[in-house]
């Protein structure tokens, strides 16, 4: 993937240096018409990256291109093309949902109040409620409904499934699938709930400690790895494994498919995203 016109979002060498945390050369490409999961453990740099993309935080370096337009050069136009939800609306405790929608309506020329009403209905939200009267899950859904009520092509959601019950989570994922149906719109969403990614993501970007350790087609990333297990761990496993866990009697290790076969491996299976994430984090964030 080279980006350009076929890319909904292209992030190149994004850097941000805080005293205690550093985002280092974050790069990835989200093609048009796909869903990308942005995954990493707490504090890995997911929100910082998304905030840098949205320029709520000004990056120290790097470039963000949305549908071929440079974010820095065309900030207002590009932001109009993005539906962004930063997660649960935590702060406006005494403000009613509909009042926040009015504010959004003032800034987005394409804000569609009918669409907002239908999203509220779909999520069973009551806009006349104050934020403090809504549960954490309702606030997340409300934030997503607000973000989606204007005409956008790129949808960026920060932890959109966090705090949601399993049914609501599934509904949210269905909504993401509907967004990309036309093959033009794309979704980037961050999460640490890896089962959501297993269900819906076409592409996967993994971040750890401010560095991207993998980005690409989800199935390709998973297919290029194997989870092996067996009895006593051998020197070969220790040498070839990305990372491993062992007890006196058995071991489990994540290895690259290209390193198979390994003599000590009694079972070989395809890892899921959670296993991939855990083993790479254990390996200290080596690039996949």
């Amino acid at each position: 993937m080279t980006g350009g016109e076929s890319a909904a979002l292209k992030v190149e060498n994004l850097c941000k240096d805080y005293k205690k945390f550093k985002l280092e050369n974050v790069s990835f490409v989200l093609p048009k018409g796909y869903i990308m999961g942005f995954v990493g453990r707490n504090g890995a740099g997911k929100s910082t990256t998304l905030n840098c993309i949205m320029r709520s935080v000004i990056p120290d370096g790097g470039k963000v291109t949305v549908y071929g337009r440079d974010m820095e050069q065309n900030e207002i136009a590009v932001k109009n093309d993005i539906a962004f939800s930063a997660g649960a609306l935590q702060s406006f405790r005494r403000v009613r949902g509909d009042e926040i929608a009015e504010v959004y309506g003032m800034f987005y020329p394409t804000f569609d109040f009918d669409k907002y009403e239908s999203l509220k209905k779909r999520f069973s939200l009551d806009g006349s409620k104050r934020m403090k009267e809504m549960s954490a899950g309702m606030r997340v859904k409300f934030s997503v409904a607000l973000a989606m009520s204007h005409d956008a092509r790129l949808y960026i959601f920060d932890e959109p499934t966090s705090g949601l019950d399993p049914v609501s989570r599934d509904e949210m994922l269905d909504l993401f699938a509907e967004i990309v149906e036309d093959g033009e719109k794309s979704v980037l969403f961050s999460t640490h709930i890896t089962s959501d990614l297993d269900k819906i993501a076409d592409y996967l970007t993994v971040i750890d400690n401010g560095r991207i350790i993998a980005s690409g087609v989800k199935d390709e990333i998973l297919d290029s790895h194997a989870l092996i297990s067996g009895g006593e761990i051998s020197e070969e496993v220790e040498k070839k494994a990305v990372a491993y866990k062992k007890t006196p009697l058995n071991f489990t290790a994540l290895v690259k498919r290209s390193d198979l076969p390994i003599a000590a491996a009694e079972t070989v299976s395809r890892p899921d995203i959670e296993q991939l994430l855990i083993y790479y984090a254990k390996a200290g964030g080596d690039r996949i």
Partner: protein
Amino acid sequence: MRTAFKLARAHFKLDFPKPMLIMLLMSVTMLAPNYPRIVVIMFFIMMMGSLLSVVRETRSEDMFLTLPIRRRDVVGGQTVYIVCIQTLYLLCCTVTSVVSMFIPFFGKTIATYQPGILANVAFFGISLAVYGAFNLVFLPLYYRKGSNVSAASLTIACLVGILVAILTYGIFETLAQTVPPIGKILLNFDVETLPWQFLFLIGGAALYAALTFFGTRLAEKRYMRGN
């Protein structure tokens, strides 16, 4: 500029606690005999400190940054929000000062039974100049760490702003007491000095606009730098 007005409107919708409107009643102190006028206009700063602590707590500016605006617009929105409140408060003071002209008090009226500068037309020019001086120092100090406005930043900005405002008023009071032609304009309600009083008003308004503009520009630079 249009964006700044929209952001100010958003501040009123999301951040303005309606009970805070009661603070506008502090303008009624204009009706208290022998009550220093400087204190009356300073009540605004108490009101603003409270309002901006709400802005800081709601972190509405973080939300604004995700909207289709430029980063620097956030500061402009904050300035317009402050200017609206300052104007509203001064309008309330104008009403009460007019009322004070009709309340008799020991052979005078409340309006004239005062030491120092009287609340005539020129006084509102001076008040605007004082608010302008306040804005000039307050805004850059408030945003001294960029978008990360701490409670300390707000407190320091308010304290320094109050000091500068008092100093500015002090300069006018000193001029009124020591320069007779200025005293003639600021220390009475004579109709014959009315054109000069209006000149003070226009000059004060111009100074207010200029100082607020420069304060905003400085604040924008700091806001852009730190995030």
